[in-house]
């Protein structure tokens, strides 16, 4: 794995939130490199800044200071237009609460990012079917999120995240809402994704999920306090 190029390069990243009660320093100077094809888990106590860091890496939040580059593209100070396009093409997001569009079917949810990227109807339909089959949902294409279990919804969300062949898959507590058995299936799916070449950064409380990763980054109080590969 060490032979791959550096995909994520964060230098002294900070993110402050100005609150009425004072400034919250959520991330207080994080420097982190992630290589392509790596599988990284970020762990640490609640409120230590894991989600904030993941949001910065995923370009849905902007750092207060520091620099961040992904696949050679600088993200700090990037205008919204470019950041949006970057997310569409290079980042796949998986959320704790799945966040599928409730009015769309599984298939349509997976098609959505491809439609936004301008892919033709037949092409995106074919790819959406393939992706849903890949995550093990080939039989539930036309179900809406409310008709699916939590685990099934999370599989659809993963298929959606993979739709535009992202360079990086980001997941924030992906097993947080799932029971233990479904969680295990999800862990297996992430491993398979990584084996098939996807770079993954996952934020988690789930020890089993963290154990499956090849590198575990420990955070505390907005800082990385430990970073070890296995």
């Amino acid at each position, binding site marked *: 794995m060490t032979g791959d190029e550096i995909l994520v390069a964060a230098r002294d990243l900070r993110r402050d939130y100005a609150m009425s009660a004072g400034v919250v320093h959520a991330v207080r100077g994080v420097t982190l490199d992630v290589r392509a094809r790596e599988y990284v888990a970020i762990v640490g106590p609640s409120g230590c800044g894991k989600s*904030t860091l993941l*949001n910065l890496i995923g370009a849905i*939040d902007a750092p207060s200071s520091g620099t961040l580059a992904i696949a050679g593209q600088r993200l700090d100070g990037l205008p919204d237009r470019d950041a949006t396009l970057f*997310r569409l093409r290079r980042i796949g997001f998986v*959320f*704790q609460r799945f966040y599928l569009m409730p*009015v769309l079917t599984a298939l349509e949810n997976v098609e959505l990012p491809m439609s936004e990227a301008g892919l033709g109807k037949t092409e995106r339909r074919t790819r959406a079917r393939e992706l849903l089959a890949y995550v093990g949902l080939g039989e539930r294409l036309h179900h809406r999120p409310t008709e699916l279990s939590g685990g099934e919804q999370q599989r659809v969300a993963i298929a959606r995240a993979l739709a535009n062949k992202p360079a990086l898959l980001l997941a924030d507590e992906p097993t947080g809402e799932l029971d233990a058995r479904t969680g295990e299936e999800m862990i297996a799916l992430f491993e398979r994704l990584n084996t098939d070449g996807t770079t993954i950064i996952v934020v988690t409380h789930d020890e089993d999920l963290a154990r499956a990763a090849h590198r575990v980054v420990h955070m505390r109080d907005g800082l990385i306090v430990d970073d070890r590969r296995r």
Partner: protein
Amino acid sequence: MILALARASLVRQRARTLLAVVGVAISAAMLLDMVMLASGMRVSFGSLLLAQGFQIRLAPKGTLPFDTDATIPDASGIVQRLRARSDVIAVSPVLGAQLHVEHGTASVSAAALGTIAAVQGDYKLLEGELPAQDEEIAANDALLAAVGAHIGDTLRVAAGFDPQLRAYTGQRALRIVGRAHFIYLSAGERAMALPLATLQSMEGSSRTDRASLLMVRLRAGADVEAARAAIERDVRTVSAISTATAIEQVEQRLSYFRQLAFILGTVSLAVGFLLVTTLVTVSVNERLGEIAVLRAIGVRRVRIVEQILIEGSAIMLVGAFLGLGLGLVTARYLNSILAAFPGLPEAIDFFLFQPRDAWVALGLLAGCGILAGVYPAWRGASLPIAATLREEAVA
């Protein structure tokens, strides 16, 4: 795909969307009616005055046509003088009076117009013949119904009733030769037309060779204003008014209607606008999380804006189309109420539909529909993505 999302969010809250559409339809109907009201009377009055092709009307000096009981003396002399002018094609003298038609032991009153049948422009013959000979009349349906008479019947008609002698004056037996529609009279008013000479003789010495009004038709291309001024200079006993001026005067009197229409129209537009803005804002507020997710997975701001604007416009457009239909129905109903307005010709429409009105109303509504989405669209598009997702997770 974005279209599908916009549609879905409207369908999701079906009852709410429906209520908003109905609300918009009502305000659109009101708007259309007001646009119609603003121009309807003017247009229908203009076409009414011009319908018979007389461009100038002569009334006794200092009065407006049929405004008073005053009459023009030496009518035949004036007709001859006008006819002598090269730009005049036809002159139609009209004498107005109120006559009493015997019916059993009582009598019914009716408006009577003494005209020269060949050049008259006051009525349209529906059936039978023009009353061209002495003691012939054409009556309208209201009069025929009131006395139960038909074409061919003879009516006993008097010019007046002397209460001391308890006798009718100027009584004649008049034969009905035609059935007519009187253009300038209000609905249901009983009326008859008869030769000018017959009416003048019935009315007695006070009306010998007199007319209430003279209508003048000019040669095509003639300068109406020049002719009008020349006639007024030439014939000292009359005031001449051109149709254009008459329309202008009516327009001035109608400016109240236009102001009223403008204010009420603006109010209904504002109500429709607020209704749609409120609905779309509420709907966007309910979906802040969804919108943040769309943005997180790479959906551009313009797509969010599009989706929300489409939502607002769709409600507005569907409501507008329903409203235009509703507006036409209510306009017809209101017209029928106002047609009974005393003293107004039946042919005057307060709410006259012209295709232009529908386009104006539709354009205003469409514009409002787009504007109504602007605030919620801006709100949706400028969401802080990470913070919104965080709030969504807490909620």
